[in-house]
Protein backbone atom coordinates (compact mmCIF):
# COMPACT_ATOMS: atom_id res chain seq x y z
CA UNK A 1 0.00 0.00 0.00
CA UNK A 2 2.96 2.25 0.71
CA UNK A 3 4.07 1.88 -2.90
CA UNK A 4 0.53 2.60 -4.10
CA UNK A 5 0.66 5.94 -2.37
CA UNK A 6 3.95 6.71 -4.03
CA UNK A 7 2.25 6.01 -7.33
CA UNK A 8 -0.32 8.67 -6.49
CA UNK A 9 2.34 11.36 -6.22
CA UNK A 10 2.93 11.83 -9.96
CA UNK A 11 -0.82 12.12 -10.46
CA UNK A 12 -1.02 14.79 -7.79
CA UNK A 13 1.85 16.64 -9.41
CA UNK A 14 -0.02 16.59 -12.68
CA UNK A 15 -3.13 18.01 -11.02
CA UNK A 16 -1.09 20.84 -9.55
CA UNK A 17 0.61 21.47 -12.87
CA UNK A 18 -2.78 21.53 -14.54
CA UNK A 19 -4.05 24.17 -12.14
CA UNK A 20 -0.88 26.18 -12.54
CA UNK A 21 -1.13 25.99 -16.32
CA UNK A 22 -4.75 27.10 -16.22
CA UNK A 23 -3.51 30.53 -15.21
CA UNK A 24 -2.00 30.89 -18.65
CA UNK A 25 -4.92 29.50 -20.64
CA UNK A 26 -8.17 30.99 -21.88
CA UNK A 27 -10.09 29.47 -18.99
CA UNK A 28 -11.44 32.27 -16.85
CA UNK A 29 -12.74 32.00 -13.29
CA UNK A 30 -16.34 30.97 -13.79
CA UNK A 31 -17.60 31.63 -10.25
CA UNK A 32 -17.40 35.36 -9.66
CA UNK A 33 -16.78 36.79 -6.19
CA UNK A 34 -20.35 38.14 -6.06
CA UNK A 35 -21.66 34.63 -6.71
CA UNK A 36 -20.03 33.13 -3.61
CA UNK A 37 -22.56 34.06 -0.95
CA UNK A 38 -23.55 30.43 -0.39
CA UNK A 39 -19.93 29.35 -0.21
CA UNK A 40 -19.33 32.04 2.43
CA UNK A 41 -22.29 30.93 4.54
CA UNK A 42 -21.15 29.58 7.95
CA UNK A 43 -22.92 26.28 7.24
CA UNK A 44 -20.25 25.73 4.54
CA UNK A 45 -17.34 26.49 6.87
CA UNK A 46 -15.07 23.71 8.06
CA UNK A 47 -13.50 25.92 10.71
CA UNK A 48 -16.76 27.17 12.11
CA UNK A 49 -15.99 25.91 15.60
CA UNK A 50 -12.43 27.19 15.72
CA UNK A 51 -10.44 25.44 18.39
CA UNK A 52 -13.28 22.98 19.03
CA UNK A 53 -12.86 21.69 15.47
CA UNK A 54 -9.13 21.04 15.75
CA UNK A 55 -9.54 19.46 19.18
CA UNK A 56 -11.14 16.44 17.51
CA UNK A 57 -7.98 15.93 15.45
CA UNK A 58 -6.08 15.72 18.73
CA UNK A 59 -8.58 13.14 20.04
CA UNK A 60 -8.10 10.96 16.98
CA UNK A 61 -4.32 11.35 16.77
CA UNK A 62 -4.04 10.14 20.35
CA UNK A 63 -5.91 6.92 19.61
CA UNK A 64 -5.09 6.14 15.99
CA UNK A 65 -1.79 5.76 14.18
CA UNK A 66 -2.92 7.98 11.35
CA UNK A 67 -1.67 11.55 11.23
CA UNK A 68 -1.64 14.37 8.74
CA UNK A 69 -3.93 15.81 6.07
CA UNK A 70 -6.51 16.81 8.67
CA UNK A 71 -6.90 19.99 6.64
CA UNK A 72 -10.62 20.21 7.14
CA UNK A 73 -10.43 22.48 10.11
CA UNK A 74 -10.11 25.49 7.89
CA UNK A 75 -13.07 27.01 6.17
CA UNK A 76 -14.26 29.33 3.51
CA UNK A 77 -14.10 29.57 -0.18
CA UNK A 78 -11.61 32.17 -1.29
CA UNK A 79 -14.52 34.57 -1.47
CA UNK A 80 -13.37 37.97 -0.35
Amino acid at each position, binding site marked *: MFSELKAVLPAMTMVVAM*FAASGCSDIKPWVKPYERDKLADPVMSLSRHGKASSYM*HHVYQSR*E*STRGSEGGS*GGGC*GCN
Partner: protein
Amino acid sequence: MAVTERRGGSLRAPGLIVLLVSVASPWAIAATLPEDNVDLLYHRYEGGGMVIDGPSVLVRKNVGPQVSVTGQYYVDSVSAASVDVLATASEYTEERTELTAGVDYLYENSILSLGYTNSSENDYEADTVYFSVSQEFFGGMSTVTLGYANGWDTVGQRGNKSFAEEADRRNYQFGLSQVITTNSLVGLDFEVVTDEGFLQNPYRQNRFIDPNDPNNFQYQPERYPQTRTSYSVATRALYYLPYRASVRAEYRYFSDTWGIDSHTYELAYVHALNPRWSLEGKARYYDQGQADFYSDLYAFENSQTHLARDKEMSSFSGITLGGGLVYEWKQTSLPGISRLQGSLLLDWLEFDYDNFRDVTAPGNFSPGEEPLYSFDALVTRASLILEY
Protein backbone atom coordinates in the same frame (compact mmCIF):
# COMPACT_ATOMS: atom_id res chain seq x y z
CA MET B 1 2.76 11.52 28.78
CA ALA B 2 2.45 8.44 30.98
CA VAL B 3 1.27 4.99 30.18
CA THR B 4 -1.88 5.67 28.36
CA GLU B 5 -0.83 8.33 25.91
CA ARG B 6 0.34 6.88 22.68
CA ARG B 7 3.61 7.91 21.18
CA GLY B 8 4.50 8.70 17.67
CA GLY B 9 5.37 12.32 17.94
CA SER B 10 2.28 13.64 16.31
CA LEU B 11 -0.01 14.58 19.13
CA ARG B 12 1.94 16.83 21.38
CA ALA B 13 0.69 20.04 19.92
CA PRO B 14 -3.01 20.37 19.18
CA GLY B 15 -2.46 24.11 19.18
CA LEU B 16 -0.12 23.62 16.29
CA ILE B 17 -2.83 21.72 14.50
CA VAL B 18 -5.37 24.48 14.91
CA LEU B 19 -3.01 27.16 13.73
CA LEU B 20 -1.75 25.17 10.79
CA VAL B 21 -5.14 24.19 9.55
CA SER B 22 -7.21 27.23 10.42
CA VAL B 23 -4.87 29.77 8.92
CA ALA B 24 -2.74 27.82 6.52
CA SER B 25 -5.41 25.47 5.25
CA PRO B 26 -6.47 26.02 1.68
CA TRP B 27 -9.98 26.07 3.07
CA ALA B 28 -9.16 29.28 4.80
CA ILE B 29 -9.97 32.55 3.14
CA ALA B 30 -6.54 33.12 1.74
CA ALA B 31 -6.36 36.82 1.17
CA THR B 32 -8.18 38.03 4.26
CA LEU B 33 -6.91 37.89 7.80
CA PRO B 34 -9.30 36.34 10.31
CA GLU B 35 -11.38 38.68 12.47
CA ASP B 36 -10.18 39.63 15.94
CA ASN B 37 -11.68 37.05 18.26
CA VAL B 38 -11.58 35.21 21.54
CA ASP B 39 -12.14 31.47 21.23
CA LEU B 40 -13.08 29.78 24.50
CA LEU B 41 -13.44 26.01 24.73
CA TYR B 42 -14.13 23.49 27.44
CA HIS B 43 -13.29 19.97 26.27
CA ARG B 44 -13.93 16.64 27.96
CA TYR B 45 -13.07 13.12 26.87
CA GLU B 46 -14.46 10.25 28.94
CA GLY B 47 -14.11 6.59 28.06
CA GLY B 48 -11.86 3.54 28.20
CA GLY B 49 -10.96 4.35 31.80
CA MET B 50 -9.77 7.83 30.89
CA VAL B 51 -11.11 11.24 31.78
CA ILE B 52 -9.33 14.14 30.10
CA ASP B 53 -10.71 17.61 30.31
CA GLY B 54 -9.65 21.22 30.44
CA PRO B 55 -9.98 24.70 29.04
CA SER B 56 -8.60 26.31 25.94
CA VAL B 57 -8.36 30.05 25.37
CA LEU B 58 -7.25 31.57 22.09
CA VAL B 59 -7.01 35.30 21.46
CA ARG B 60 -6.48 36.78 18.03
CA LYS B 61 -5.75 40.44 17.42
CA ASN B 62 -4.96 42.32 14.24
CA VAL B 63 -2.05 44.74 14.36
CA GLY B 64 -2.64 47.02 11.43
CA PRO B 65 -4.17 45.87 8.16
CA GLN B 66 -1.56 43.22 7.34
CA VAL B 67 -0.62 41.49 10.59
CA SER B 68 -2.61 39.30 12.93
CA VAL B 69 -1.18 37.78 16.11
CA THR B 70 -2.52 34.90 18.19
CA GLY B 71 -1.88 33.45 21.60
CA GLN B 72 -3.32 30.25 22.93
CA TYR B 73 -3.41 28.51 26.29
CA TYR B 74 -4.58 24.90 26.44
CA VAL B 75 -4.77 22.35 29.27
CA ASP B 76 -5.33 18.58 29.39
CA SER B 77 -6.10 17.34 32.91
CA VAL B 78 -5.75 13.57 32.78
CA SER B 79 -7.16 10.94 35.12
CA ALA B 80 -6.08 7.58 33.77
CA ALA B 81 -7.13 4.02 34.51
CA SER B 82 -7.09 2.63 30.97
CA VAL B 83 -6.43 -1.00 30.05
CA ASP B 84 -2.77 -0.09 29.41
CA VAL B 85 -2.44 1.46 32.84
CA LEU B 86 -4.23 -1.30 34.72
CA ALA B 87 -2.23 -4.05 32.97
CA THR B 88 1.22 -2.93 34.06
CA ALA B 89 0.96 0.16 36.29
CA SER B 90 -1.29 2.09 38.66
CA GLU B 91 -3.97 4.68 38.11
CA TYR B 92 -2.56 8.18 37.93
CA THR B 93 -3.39 11.81 37.27
CA GLU B 94 -1.35 14.41 35.45
CA GLU B 95 -1.64 17.68 33.58
CA ARG B 96 -0.34 18.89 30.26
CA THR B 97 -0.12 22.58 29.46
CA GLU B 98 0.37 24.01 26.04
CA LEU B 99 1.20 27.55 24.95
CA THR B 100 1.16 28.74 21.36
CA ALA B 101 2.12 32.06 19.81
CA GLY B 102 1.66 32.83 16.15
CA VAL B 103 1.73 35.66 13.64
CA ASP B 104 0.08 35.89 10.23
CA TYR B 105 1.21 38.35 7.60
CA LEU B 106 -1.05 39.30 4.71
CA TYR B 107 0.70 40.26 1.50
CA GLU B 108 -1.53 40.76 -1.56
CA ASN B 109 -3.15 37.36 -2.15
CA SER B 110 -0.91 35.48 0.24
CA ILE B 111 -0.83 34.81 3.96
CA LEU B 112 2.47 33.89 5.57
CA SER B 113 2.20 32.29 8.99
CA LEU B 114 4.84 31.64 11.60
CA GLY B 115 4.33 30.12 15.02
CA TYR B 116 5.76 28.39 18.03
CA THR B 117 4.18 25.89 20.42
CA ASN B 118 5.43 24.53 23.71
CA SER B 119 3.78 21.54 25.33
CA SER B 120 4.83 20.68 28.85
CA GLU B 121 4.06 17.92 31.34
CA ASN B 122 6.00 16.30 34.11
CA ASP B 123 7.64 13.69 31.86
CA TYR B 124 7.42 15.17 28.37
CA GLU B 125 8.47 18.44 26.79
CA ALA B 126 7.73 19.35 23.18
CA ASP B 127 8.67 22.44 21.17
CA THR B 128 7.42 23.03 17.67
CA VAL B 129 8.04 25.75 15.11
CA TYR B 130 5.89 26.01 12.01
CA PHE B 131 5.76 28.07 8.86
CA SER B 132 3.22 28.15 6.08
CA VAL B 133 2.26 30.16 3.06
CA SER B 134 -1.20 30.22 1.56
CA GLN B 135 -1.71 31.68 -1.90
CA GLU B 136 -5.00 32.48 -3.59
CA PHE B 137 -5.18 32.60 -7.37
CA PHE B 138 -7.43 32.02 -10.39
CA GLY B 139 -9.81 34.80 -9.35
CA GLY B 140 -9.93 33.47 -5.83
CA MET B 141 -11.33 30.14 -6.96
CA SER B 142 -8.15 28.24 -6.08
CA THR B 143 -6.01 28.33 -2.98
CA VAL B 144 -2.73 26.50 -2.50
CA THR B 145 -1.07 26.10 0.87
CA LEU B 146 2.41 24.88 1.67
CA GLY B 147 3.33 24.19 5.29
CA TYR B 148 6.36 23.04 7.21
CA ALA B 149 6.75 22.26 10.90
CA ASN B 150 9.71 21.09 12.93
CA GLY B 151 9.34 19.61 16.41
CA TRP B 152 11.82 18.73 19.13
CA ASP B 153 10.59 16.49 21.93
CA THR B 154 12.28 15.45 25.14
CA VAL B 155 10.91 12.24 26.62
CA GLY B 156 11.27 11.63 30.34
CA GLN B 157 10.11 8.97 32.75
CA ARG B 158 8.60 9.50 36.18
CA GLY B 159 10.68 7.98 38.94
CA ASN B 160 13.75 7.81 36.73
CA LYS B 161 15.48 11.17 36.59
CA SER B 162 18.36 9.82 34.54
CA PHE B 163 16.01 8.91 31.69
CA ALA B 164 15.96 11.52 28.91
CA GLU B 165 15.46 10.70 25.25
CA GLU B 166 15.00 12.90 22.20
CA ALA B 167 12.64 12.75 19.25
CA ASP B 168 12.56 15.11 16.26
CA ARG B 169 9.73 15.51 13.82
CA ARG B 170 9.17 17.26 10.51
CA ASN B 171 5.85 17.88 8.78
CA TYR B 172 5.55 18.80 5.10
CA GLN B 173 2.10 19.86 3.98
CA PHE B 174 0.45 20.63 0.69
CA GLY B 175 -3.17 21.68 0.29
CA LEU B 176 -5.37 22.71 -2.58
CA SER B 177 -8.88 24.12 -2.36
CA GLN B 178 -10.99 24.64 -5.43
CA VAL B 179 -14.34 26.33 -5.94
CA ILE B 180 -16.28 24.21 -8.42
CA THR B 181 -19.66 25.90 -8.66
CA THR B 182 -21.58 28.56 -6.77
CA ASN B 183 -22.54 25.93 -4.22
CA SER B 184 -19.72 23.39 -4.17
CA LEU B 185 -16.07 23.17 -3.10
CA VAL B 186 -13.50 20.41 -3.26
CA GLY B 187 -10.15 20.06 -1.53
CA LEU B 188 -7.05 17.94 -1.63
CA ASP B 189 -4.46 17.59 1.13
CA PHE B 190 -1.17 15.77 1.19
CA GLU B 191 1.19 15.51 4.13
CA VAL B 192 4.47 13.78 4.85
CA VAL B 193 5.64 13.40 8.44
CA THR B 194 9.06 12.11 9.42
CA ASP B 195 10.16 11.18 12.94
CA GLU B 196 13.54 10.32 14.28
CA GLY B 197 14.57 9.35 17.79
CA PHE B 198 12.80 7.76 20.72
CA LEU B 199 9.35 7.09 19.28
CA GLN B 200 7.88 4.70 21.81
CA ASN B 201 6.19 5.15 25.16
CA PRO B 202 8.69 4.38 27.95
CA TYR B 203 5.94 3.10 30.21
CA ARG B 204 4.27 0.63 27.90
CA GLN B 205 5.31 -3.00 27.62
CA ASN B 206 4.62 -5.98 25.45
CA ARG B 207 4.18 -9.57 26.54
CA PHE B 208 5.57 -12.97 25.64
CA ILE B 209 4.79 -16.51 26.71
CA ASP B 210 6.50 -17.50 29.93
CA PRO B 211 9.16 -20.06 28.92
CA ASN B 212 8.62 -21.90 32.22
CA ASP B 213 4.84 -21.87 32.14
CA PRO B 214 2.99 -21.75 28.80
CA ASN B 215 -0.19 -20.85 30.68
CA ASN B 216 1.34 -17.57 31.77
CA PHE B 217 3.09 -14.61 30.18
CA GLN B 218 5.71 -12.04 31.10
CA TYR B 219 6.31 -8.42 30.08
CA GLN B 220 9.28 -6.76 28.39
CA PRO B 221 9.85 -3.12 27.30
CA GLU B 222 8.63 -1.85 23.95
CA ARG B 223 11.24 -1.45 21.23
CA TYR B 224 10.24 0.68 18.26
CA PRO B 225 12.27 1.64 15.19
CA GLN B 226 14.03 4.98 15.59
CA THR B 227 12.70 6.41 12.36
CA ARG B 228 9.23 6.65 10.87
CA THR B 229 7.90 8.32 7.75
CA SER B 230 4.23 8.57 6.93
CA TYR B 231 2.23 9.77 3.95
CA SER B 232 -1.39 10.80 3.98
CA VAL B 233 -3.66 12.10 1.28
CA ALA B 234 -7.16 13.39 1.84
CA THR B 235 -9.91 14.61 -0.41
CA ARG B 236 -13.07 16.36 0.65
CA ALA B 237 -16.11 17.95 -0.92
CA LEU B 238 -18.69 20.38 0.38
CA TYR B 239 -22.07 21.00 -1.18
CA TYR B 240 -24.67 23.67 -0.37
CA LEU B 241 -28.14 22.19 -0.57
CA PRO B 242 -31.14 23.92 -2.18
CA TYR B 243 -32.19 25.06 1.30
CA ARG B 244 -29.80 26.52 3.91
CA ALA B 245 -27.86 23.40 4.74
CA SER B 246 -24.68 21.66 3.65
CA VAL B 247 -23.27 18.18 3.26
CA ARG B 248 -19.60 17.29 3.48
CA ALA B 249 -17.84 14.09 2.47
CA GLU B 250 -14.22 13.23 3.20
CA TYR B 251 -11.86 10.37 2.53
CA ARG B 252 -8.28 9.98 3.75
CA TYR B 253 -5.70 7.34 3.01
CA PHE B 254 -2.65 6.87 5.21
CA SER B 255 0.46 4.73 4.95
CA ASP B 256 3.76 4.61 6.83
CA THR B 257 7.12 2.87 6.88
CA TRP B 258 6.05 0.73 9.85
CA GLY B 259 3.56 -1.07 7.63
CA ILE B 260 0.47 0.68 8.97
CA ASP B 261 -2.15 1.82 6.53
CA SER B 262 -5.60 3.21 7.15
CA HIS B 263 -8.75 4.54 5.57
CA THR B 264 -10.92 7.28 7.07
CA TYR B 265 -14.40 8.13 5.81
CA GLU B 266 -16.53 10.97 7.10
CA LEU B 267 -19.95 12.34 6.22
CA ALA B 268 -21.39 15.47 7.83
CA TYR B 269 -24.55 17.51 7.59
CA VAL B 270 -25.30 21.05 8.82
CA HIS B 271 -28.88 22.30 8.90
CA ALA B 272 -29.90 25.88 9.66
CA LEU B 273 -33.12 26.00 11.69
CA ASN B 274 -33.36 29.78 11.42
CA PRO B 275 -30.88 32.65 11.01
CA ARG B 276 -29.44 32.03 14.50
CA TRP B 277 -29.83 28.36 15.34
CA SER B 278 -28.45 25.39 13.47
CA LEU B 279 -28.05 21.66 14.02
CA GLU B 280 -25.28 19.45 12.76
CA GLY B 281 -24.45 15.77 12.68
CA LYS B 282 -21.67 13.55 11.42
CA ALA B 283 -20.64 9.94 11.02
CA ARG B 284 -17.02 8.77 10.74
CA TYR B 285 -15.54 5.37 10.07
CA TYR B 286 -11.88 4.51 10.55
CA ASP B 287 -10.11 1.28 9.64
CA GLN B 288 -6.43 0.55 10.32
CA GLY B 289 -4.01 -2.30 9.62
CA GLN B 290 -1.34 -3.25 12.16
CA ALA B 291 2.36 -2.33 12.22
CA ASP B 292 4.64 -5.01 10.79
CA PHE B 293 6.27 -5.62 14.17
CA TYR B 294 3.11 -5.53 16.30
CA SER B 295 2.00 -8.58 18.26
CA ASP B 296 -0.44 -9.02 21.11
CA LEU B 297 1.64 -11.95 22.37
CA TYR B 298 5.17 -12.83 21.30
CA ALA B 299 6.24 -16.48 21.35
CA PHE B 300 9.34 -15.79 23.43
CA GLU B 301 11.44 -12.96 24.83
CA ASN B 302 13.19 -10.68 22.32
CA SER B 303 11.77 -12.77 19.51
CA GLN B 304 12.31 -9.96 16.97
CA THR B 305 14.20 -6.71 16.57
CA HIS B 306 11.23 -4.41 17.10
CA LEU B 307 8.53 -5.12 19.64
CA ALA B 308 5.22 -3.33 20.12
CA ARG B 309 1.95 -4.10 21.83
CA ASP B 310 0.55 -0.58 21.77
CA LYS B 311 -3.06 -1.05 20.81
CA GLU B 312 -2.70 1.96 18.51
CA MET B 313 -0.27 -0.18 16.48
CA SER B 314 -2.76 -3.05 16.17
CA SER B 315 -5.42 -3.72 13.60
CA PHE B 316 -8.70 -2.06 14.58
CA SER B 317 -11.65 0.00 13.46
CA GLY B 318 -13.56 2.87 14.98
CA ILE B 319 -16.79 4.71 14.44
CA THR B 320 -17.88 8.16 15.54
CA LEU B 321 -21.39 9.53 15.66
CA GLY B 322 -21.60 13.21 16.49
CA GLY B 323 -24.14 15.96 16.80
CA GLY B 324 -24.30 19.56 17.88
CA LEU B 325 -26.38 22.65 18.42
CA VAL B 326 -25.01 26.03 17.36
CA TYR B 327 -26.23 29.53 18.15
CA GLU B 328 -24.86 32.36 16.05
CA TRP B 329 -25.63 36.03 16.64
CA LYS B 330 -24.28 38.38 14.00
CA GLN B 331 -24.10 42.12 14.61
CA THR B 332 -24.85 41.74 18.28
CA SER B 333 -26.05 44.55 20.50
CA LEU B 334 -23.45 43.55 23.07
CA PRO B 335 -20.88 46.31 23.65
CA GLY B 336 -17.64 45.63 21.81
CA ILE B 337 -18.82 42.29 20.41
CA SER B 338 -19.57 42.17 16.69
CA ARG B 339 -20.44 38.47 16.49
CA LEU B 340 -21.12 35.72 19.00
CA GLN B 341 -21.24 31.99 18.46
CA GLY B 342 -21.98 29.37 21.09
CA SER B 343 -21.86 25.63 20.39
CA LEU B 344 -22.45 22.41 22.26
CA LEU B 345 -21.03 19.40 20.43
CA LEU B 346 -21.22 15.75 21.47
CA ASP B 347 -19.38 12.87 19.83
CA TRP B 348 -19.66 9.19 20.69
CA LEU B 349 -16.68 7.06 19.68
CA GLU B 350 -16.30 3.30 19.65
CA PHE B 351 -13.12 1.33 18.91
CA ASP B 352 -13.03 -2.42 18.23
CA TYR B 353 -9.65 -4.14 18.19
CA ASP B 354 -8.97 -7.13 15.93
CA ASN B 355 -5.82 -8.43 17.65
CA PHE B 356 -5.39 -6.61 20.93
CA ARG B 357 -6.66 -8.66 23.85
CA ASP B 358 -7.90 -7.44 27.21
CA VAL B 359 -5.58 -8.94 29.85
CA THR B 360 -7.64 -7.24 32.57
CA ALA B 361 -10.82 -9.13 31.65
CA PRO B 362 -12.19 -11.11 34.60
CA GLY B 363 -11.83 -14.88 34.34
CA ASN B 364 -9.06 -17.39 33.76
CA PHE B 365 -7.76 -17.31 30.23
CA SER B 366 -4.74 -18.85 28.62
CA PRO B 367 -2.38 -16.30 27.04
CA GLY B 368 -3.80 -15.27 23.69
CA GLU B 369 -7.30 -16.49 24.59
CA GLU B 370 -8.47 -13.35 26.41
CA PRO B 371 -11.43 -11.48 24.89
CA LEU B 372 -10.60 -8.88 22.28
CA TYR B 373 -10.56 -5.35 23.65
CA SER B 374 -13.06 -2.65 22.76
CA PHE B 375 -14.17 0.59 24.36
CA ASP B 376 -16.33 3.60 23.76
CA ALA B 377 -15.98 7.24 24.75
CA LEU B 378 -17.97 10.44 24.86
CA VAL B 379 -16.38 13.70 23.78
CA THR B 380 -18.02 16.94 24.88
CA ARG B 381 -17.09 20.33 23.54
CA ALA B 382 -18.63 23.59 24.74
CA SER B 383 -17.39 26.49 22.66
CA LEU B 384 -17.89 30.25 22.76
CA ILE B 385 -16.39 32.46 20.06
CA LEU B 386 -16.58 36.23 20.38
CA GLU B 387 -15.49 38.46 17.52
CA TYR B 388 -14.68 42.00 18.44
